[in-house]
Protein backbone atom coordinates (compact mmCIF):
# COMPACT_ATOMS: atom_id res chain seq x y z
CA UNK A 1 0.00 0.00 0.00
CA UNK A 2 2.75 2.44 0.91
CA UNK A 3 4.51 2.06 -2.46
CA UNK A 4 1.23 2.88 -4.13
CA UNK A 5 1.28 6.33 -2.60
CA UNK A 6 4.52 7.06 -4.37
CA UNK A 7 3.19 5.52 -7.60
CA UNK A 8 0.12 7.71 -7.37
CA UNK A 9 2.23 10.79 -6.72
CA UNK A 10 4.52 9.86 -9.60
CA UNK A 11 1.64 9.33 -12.02
CA UNK A 12 -0.01 12.63 -11.08
CA UNK A 13 3.31 14.42 -11.43
CA UNK A 14 4.17 12.89 -14.80
CA UNK A 15 0.72 13.66 -16.19
CA UNK A 16 1.04 17.19 -14.84
CA UNK A 17 -2.25 16.96 -12.96
CA UNK A 18 -3.53 20.17 -11.35
CA UNK A 19 -6.58 18.63 -9.80
CA UNK A 20 -8.29 15.26 -9.75
CA UNK A 21 -11.37 14.05 -7.98
CA UNK A 22 -13.47 10.89 -8.04
CA UNK A 23 -16.63 10.44 -6.01
CA UNK A 24 -20.03 11.90 -5.21
CA UNK A 25 -20.57 15.50 -6.27
CA UNK A 26 -22.68 17.99 -4.38
CA UNK A 27 -23.19 21.66 -5.20
CA UNK A 28 -20.91 22.59 -2.30
CA UNK A 29 -18.20 20.28 -3.54
CA UNK A 30 -18.37 21.78 -7.04
CA UNK A 31 -18.03 25.23 -5.45
CA UNK A 32 -14.94 24.01 -3.59
CA UNK A 33 -13.40 22.44 -6.72
CA UNK A 34 -14.01 25.63 -8.70
CA UNK A 35 -12.41 27.58 -5.86
CA UNK A 36 -9.26 25.47 -6.14
CA UNK A 37 -9.17 25.87 -9.93
CA UNK A 38 -9.61 29.61 -9.57
CA UNK A 39 -6.75 29.88 -7.07
CA UNK A 40 -4.52 28.10 -9.58
CA UNK A 41 -5.65 30.22 -12.51
CA UNK A 42 -3.04 32.96 -12.10
CA UNK A 43 -0.41 30.24 -12.55
CA UNK A 44 -1.85 29.33 -15.93
CA UNK A 45 0.27 30.31 -18.89
CA UNK A 46 -1.27 32.54 -21.48
CA UNK A 47 -3.36 35.68 -21.37
CA UNK A 48 -6.39 36.55 -19.26
CA UNK A 49 -8.69 35.31 -22.02
CA UNK A 50 -7.09 31.85 -21.93
CA UNK A 51 -7.43 31.70 -18.16
CA UNK A 52 -11.10 32.62 -18.39
CA UNK A 53 -11.60 30.01 -21.07
CA UNK A 54 -10.05 27.28 -18.92
CA UNK A 55 -12.29 28.28 -16.01
CA UNK A 56 -15.38 28.41 -18.23
CA UNK A 57 -14.73 24.95 -19.63
CA UNK A 58 -14.22 23.54 -16.13
CA UNK A 59 -17.50 25.16 -14.97
CA UNK A 60 -19.46 23.66 -17.86
CA UNK A 61 -17.82 20.23 -17.63
CA UNK A 62 -18.55 19.98 -13.89
CA UNK A 63 -22.12 21.05 -14.43
CA UNK A 64 -22.61 18.50 -17.21
CA UNK A 65 -21.19 15.89 -14.89
CA UNK A 66 -23.60 17.01 -12.19
CA UNK A 67 -26.75 17.27 -14.26
CA UNK A 68 -26.43 14.45 -16.80
CA UNK A 69 -25.64 11.75 -14.33
CA UNK A 70 -27.15 8.31 -13.74
CA UNK A 71 -26.29 8.62 -10.03
CA UNK A 72 -24.53 5.30 -9.88
CA UNK A 73 -21.14 3.72 -9.40
CA UNK A 74 -19.75 0.24 -9.79
CA UNK A 75 -18.65 -1.66 -6.74
CA UNK A 76 -17.26 -5.20 -6.97
CA UNK A 77 -18.57 -5.40 -10.52
CA UNK A 78 -22.10 -4.47 -9.52
CA UNK A 79 -23.96 -1.20 -10.19
CA UNK A 80 -24.71 0.64 -6.96
CA UNK A 81 -26.98 3.70 -6.79
CA UNK A 82 -25.41 6.83 -5.29
CA UNK A 83 -27.25 9.54 -3.37
CA UNK A 84 -25.61 12.33 -5.35
CA UNK A 85 -24.26 12.52 -8.91
CA UNK A 86 -21.06 10.48 -9.16
CA UNK A 87 -18.09 10.76 -11.45
CA UNK A 88 -14.47 11.60 -12.06
CA UNK A 89 -12.78 14.84 -13.09
CA UNK A 90 -9.15 15.64 -13.82
CA UNK A 91 -7.46 18.80 -15.02
CA UNK A 92 -3.97 18.42 -16.43
CA UNK A 93 -1.38 20.52 -18.23
CA UNK A 94 -0.63 19.57 -21.83
CA UNK A 95 1.87 20.91 -24.35
CA UNK A 96 -0.85 22.97 -26.05
CA UNK A 97 -2.70 24.14 -22.96
CA UNK A 98 -4.95 22.28 -20.55
CA UNK A 99 -6.93 19.11 -20.66
CA UNK A 100 -10.22 18.82 -18.77
CA UNK A 101 -11.33 15.18 -18.43
CA UNK A 102 -14.65 14.06 -17.03
CA UNK A 103 -16.35 10.69 -16.80
CA UNK A 104 -19.66 9.46 -15.45
CA UNK A 105 -22.43 6.94 -15.91
CA UNK A 106 -25.41 8.21 -17.87
CA UNK A 107 -28.71 6.78 -19.09
CA UNK A 108 -28.08 4.45 -22.03
CA UNK A 109 -31.22 5.79 -23.72
CA UNK A 110 -29.60 9.23 -23.99
CA UNK A 111 -26.36 8.02 -25.59
CA UNK A 112 -27.40 8.28 -29.24
CA UNK A 113 -28.83 11.78 -28.78
CA UNK A 114 -25.65 13.00 -27.12
CA UNK A 115 -23.44 11.25 -29.67
CA UNK A 116 -25.14 12.93 -32.63
CA UNK A 117 -25.09 16.30 -30.81
CA UNK A 118 -21.33 15.96 -30.26
CA UNK A 119 -20.71 14.78 -33.84
CA UNK A 120 -22.60 17.80 -35.16
CA UNK A 121 -20.58 20.16 -32.93
CA UNK A 122 -17.28 18.66 -34.04
CA UNK A 123 -18.20 19.18 -37.69
CA UNK A 124 -18.83 22.91 -37.31
CA UNK A 125 -16.37 25.74 -37.92
CA UNK A 126 -16.02 28.37 -35.16
CA UNK A 127 -18.35 30.71 -37.10
CA UNK A 128 -21.02 28.03 -37.49
CA UNK A 129 -20.62 27.03 -33.84
CA UNK A 130 -21.44 30.60 -32.85
CA UNK A 131 -24.48 30.52 -35.12
CA UNK A 132 -25.60 27.19 -33.63
CA UNK A 133 -25.20 28.68 -30.14
CA UNK A 134 -27.30 31.71 -31.07
CA UNK A 135 -30.02 29.52 -32.55
CA UNK A 136 -30.19 27.33 -29.43
CA UNK A 137 -30.15 30.38 -27.18
CA UNK A 138 -33.01 32.04 -29.03
CA UNK A 139 -35.23 28.99 -29.56
CA UNK A 140 -36.98 29.37 -26.19
CA UNK A 141 -36.61 25.76 -25.04
CA UNK A 142 -35.19 24.72 -21.70
CA UNK A 143 -33.57 21.61 -20.39
CA UNK A 144 -34.30 20.73 -16.78
CA UNK A 145 -31.29 22.70 -15.51
CA UNK A 146 -31.99 25.66 -17.77
CA UNK A 147 -29.14 25.23 -20.23
CA UNK A 148 -31.19 24.11 -23.18
CA UNK A 149 -28.40 22.14 -24.81
CA UNK A 150 -25.92 25.02 -24.85
CA UNK A 151 -23.27 23.44 -22.61
CA UNK A 152 -21.38 21.30 -25.13
CA UNK A 153 -21.53 24.04 -27.79
CA UNK A 154 -20.03 26.49 -25.33
CA UNK A 155 -17.34 24.00 -24.28
CA UNK A 156 -16.39 23.50 -27.94
CA UNK A 157 -16.31 27.25 -28.59
CA UNK A 158 -14.17 28.03 -25.57
CA UNK A 159 -11.77 25.12 -26.03
CA UNK A 160 -10.83 25.96 -29.58
CA UNK A 161 -10.41 22.27 -30.42
CA UNK A 162 -12.47 19.20 -31.28
CA UNK A 163 -14.16 17.36 -28.42
CA UNK A 164 -12.81 13.87 -27.70
CA UNK A 165 -15.43 11.53 -26.31
CA UNK A 166 -16.43 7.93 -25.91
CA UNK A 167 -19.20 5.74 -24.56
CA UNK A 168 -18.69 2.41 -22.88
CA UNK A 169 -21.95 0.44 -22.63
CA UNK A 170 -22.27 -0.90 -19.11
CA UNK A 171 -25.63 -2.64 -18.83
CA UNK A 172 -28.96 -2.32 -20.63
CA UNK A 173 -29.77 0.93 -18.82
CA UNK A 174 -26.44 2.69 -18.43
CA UNK A 175 -23.27 3.68 -20.27
CA UNK A 176 -20.06 5.32 -19.11
CA UNK A 177 -19.43 8.61 -20.86
CA UNK A 178 -15.89 10.00 -21.14
CA UNK A 179 -15.06 13.48 -22.34
CA UNK A 180 -11.68 15.07 -22.90
CA UNK A 181 -11.64 18.77 -23.66
CA UNK A 182 -8.35 20.28 -24.77
CA UNK A 183 -8.25 23.97 -24.10
CA UNK A 184 -5.61 25.64 -26.21
CA UNK A 185 -3.91 28.53 -24.45
Amino acid at each position, binding site marked *: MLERIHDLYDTLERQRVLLSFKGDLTEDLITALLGIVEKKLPLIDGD*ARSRKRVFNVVVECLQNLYHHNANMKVKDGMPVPTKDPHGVVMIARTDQGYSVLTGNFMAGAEVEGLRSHLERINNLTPELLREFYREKLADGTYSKNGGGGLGMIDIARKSGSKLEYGFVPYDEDNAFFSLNVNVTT
Partner: protein
Amino acid sequence: MASLHLEGTPKTPHVNFDHETGLLELKGRSIPENSIEFFKPLIDWVDKYGRTPQHRTALHMQLEYFNTSSSKCILDLFKKLETIRAAGNEVTVLWHYEADDEDMLEAGEDYAGIINIPFKMILIEEADSTQG
Protein backbone atom coordinates in the same frame (compact mmCIF):
# COMPACT_ATOMS: atom_id res chain seq x y z
CA MET B 1 -42.20 48.88 -5.08
CA ALA B 2 -39.23 47.70 -3.03
CA SER B 3 -35.84 47.49 -4.66
CA LEU B 4 -34.16 44.11 -5.01
CA HIS B 5 -30.74 43.79 -3.51
CA LEU B 6 -28.66 40.59 -3.32
CA GLU B 7 -25.03 40.31 -2.27
CA GLY B 8 -22.74 38.45 -4.64
CA THR B 9 -21.51 34.93 -3.81
CA PRO B 10 -18.78 32.78 -5.44
CA LYS B 11 -21.46 31.50 -7.81
CA THR B 12 -24.05 34.26 -8.09
CA PRO B 13 -23.84 37.94 -9.01
CA HIS B 14 -24.40 41.04 -6.96
CA VAL B 15 -27.90 42.26 -7.82
CA ASN B 16 -29.25 45.77 -7.43
CA PHE B 17 -32.60 46.57 -9.03
CA ASP B 18 -33.93 49.99 -8.08
CA HIS B 19 -37.47 50.97 -9.04
CA GLU B 20 -37.03 54.64 -8.14
CA THR B 21 -34.13 55.27 -10.47
CA GLY B 22 -34.89 52.62 -13.10
CA LEU B 23 -31.33 51.44 -12.66
CA LEU B 24 -30.79 47.67 -12.70
CA GLU B 25 -27.42 46.09 -12.10
CA LEU B 26 -25.96 42.57 -12.27
CA LYS B 27 -22.31 42.36 -11.37
CA GLY B 28 -19.85 39.53 -10.75
CA ARG B 29 -20.44 35.96 -11.85
CA SER B 30 -23.39 33.75 -12.55
CA ILE B 31 -22.43 30.08 -12.44
CA PRO B 32 -24.99 28.38 -10.16
CA GLU B 33 -26.00 24.75 -10.80
CA ASN B 34 -29.63 25.78 -10.74
CA SER B 35 -29.93 29.07 -12.57
CA ILE B 36 -33.70 28.94 -12.94
CA GLU B 37 -34.05 29.02 -9.16
CA PHE B 38 -31.64 31.95 -8.83
CA PHE B 39 -33.14 34.03 -11.64
CA LYS B 40 -36.82 33.50 -10.84
CA PRO B 41 -37.06 36.34 -8.27
CA LEU B 42 -35.12 38.64 -10.62
CA ILE B 43 -37.41 37.93 -13.55
CA ASP B 44 -40.49 38.25 -11.30
CA TRP B 45 -39.20 41.60 -10.04
CA VAL B 46 -38.75 42.96 -13.59
CA ASP B 47 -42.17 41.61 -14.52
CA LYS B 48 -43.74 43.57 -11.65
CA TYR B 49 -41.58 46.63 -12.38
CA GLY B 50 -43.01 46.54 -15.90
CA ARG B 51 -46.44 47.49 -14.56
CA THR B 52 -45.15 50.87 -13.36
CA PRO B 53 -41.77 51.34 -15.04
CA GLN B 54 -39.69 54.50 -15.11
CA HIS B 55 -39.67 56.30 -18.43
CA ARG B 56 -35.98 55.34 -18.68
CA THR B 57 -34.63 51.96 -17.60
CA ALA B 58 -30.98 50.96 -17.79
CA LEU B 59 -29.68 47.47 -17.09
CA HIS B 60 -25.97 47.22 -16.39
CA MET B 61 -24.57 43.77 -17.09
CA GLN B 62 -21.07 43.50 -15.68
CA LEU B 63 -20.35 39.78 -15.53
CA GLU B 64 -16.92 38.20 -15.55
CA TYR B 65 -18.32 34.68 -16.00
CA PHE B 66 -21.71 33.16 -16.69
CA ASN B 67 -22.58 29.56 -17.38
CA THR B 68 -24.84 28.28 -20.15
CA SER B 69 -27.48 27.47 -17.57
CA SER B 70 -27.62 31.21 -16.78
CA SER B 71 -27.62 32.30 -20.40
CA LYS B 72 -31.24 31.36 -21.11
CA CYS B 73 -32.34 33.01 -17.85
CA ILE B 74 -30.49 36.19 -18.84
CA LEU B 75 -32.35 36.07 -22.15
CA ASP B 76 -35.64 35.82 -20.25
CA LEU B 77 -34.67 38.87 -18.21
CA PHE B 78 -33.98 40.77 -21.44
CA LYS B 79 -37.33 39.62 -22.85
CA LYS B 80 -39.14 41.19 -19.89
CA LEU B 81 -37.30 44.43 -20.61
CA GLU B 82 -38.18 44.12 -24.29
CA THR B 83 -41.87 44.14 -23.32
CA ILE B 84 -41.33 47.28 -21.23
CA ARG B 85 -39.66 48.95 -24.21
CA ALA B 86 -42.43 47.83 -26.60
CA ALA B 87 -44.89 49.68 -24.34
CA GLY B 88 -43.14 52.94 -25.25
CA ASN B 89 -40.44 53.27 -22.59
CA GLU B 90 -36.76 53.83 -23.07
CA VAL B 91 -34.73 50.75 -22.20
CA THR B 92 -31.00 50.22 -22.62
CA VAL B 93 -28.71 47.32 -21.79
CA LEU B 94 -25.18 48.39 -20.94
CA TRP B 95 -22.95 45.37 -21.51
CA HIS B 96 -19.59 45.74 -19.78
CA TYR B 97 -16.56 43.71 -20.84
CA GLU B 98 -12.86 43.72 -20.11
CA ALA B 99 -10.36 44.65 -22.81
CA ASP B 100 -8.95 41.13 -23.12
CA ASP B 101 -12.32 39.41 -22.91
CA GLU B 102 -13.47 39.10 -26.50
CA ASP B 103 -15.69 36.16 -25.52
CA MET B 104 -17.75 38.39 -23.23
CA LEU B 105 -18.06 41.02 -25.97
CA GLU B 106 -19.25 38.32 -28.39
CA ALA B 107 -21.78 37.07 -25.83
CA GLY B 108 -23.20 40.59 -25.61
CA GLU B 109 -23.38 40.82 -29.39
CA ASP B 110 -25.23 37.50 -29.48
CA TYR B 111 -27.91 38.87 -27.15
CA ALA B 112 -28.08 42.15 -29.03
CA GLY B 113 -28.80 40.16 -32.18
CA ILE B 114 -31.71 38.33 -30.57
CA ILE B 115 -33.31 41.00 -28.39
CA ASN B 116 -34.97 44.17 -29.60
CA ILE B 117 -33.33 46.55 -27.11
CA PRO B 118 -30.41 48.89 -27.82
CA PHE B 119 -27.18 47.50 -26.37
CA LYS B 120 -24.22 49.65 -25.46
CA MET B 121 -20.92 47.77 -25.28
CA ILE B 122 -18.79 49.30 -22.56
CA LEU B 123 -15.12 48.58 -22.25
CA ILE B 124 -14.11 48.34 -18.59
CA GLU B 125 -11.04 50.45 -17.90
CA GLU B 126 -8.03 48.71 -16.35
CA ALA B 127 -8.45 50.48 -13.01
CA ASP B 128 -11.94 49.01 -12.63
CA SER B 129 -11.05 45.47 -13.60
CA THR B 130 -10.00 44.47 -10.12
CA GLN B 131 -13.36 45.40 -8.65
CA GLY B 132 -16.36 43.13 -8.23
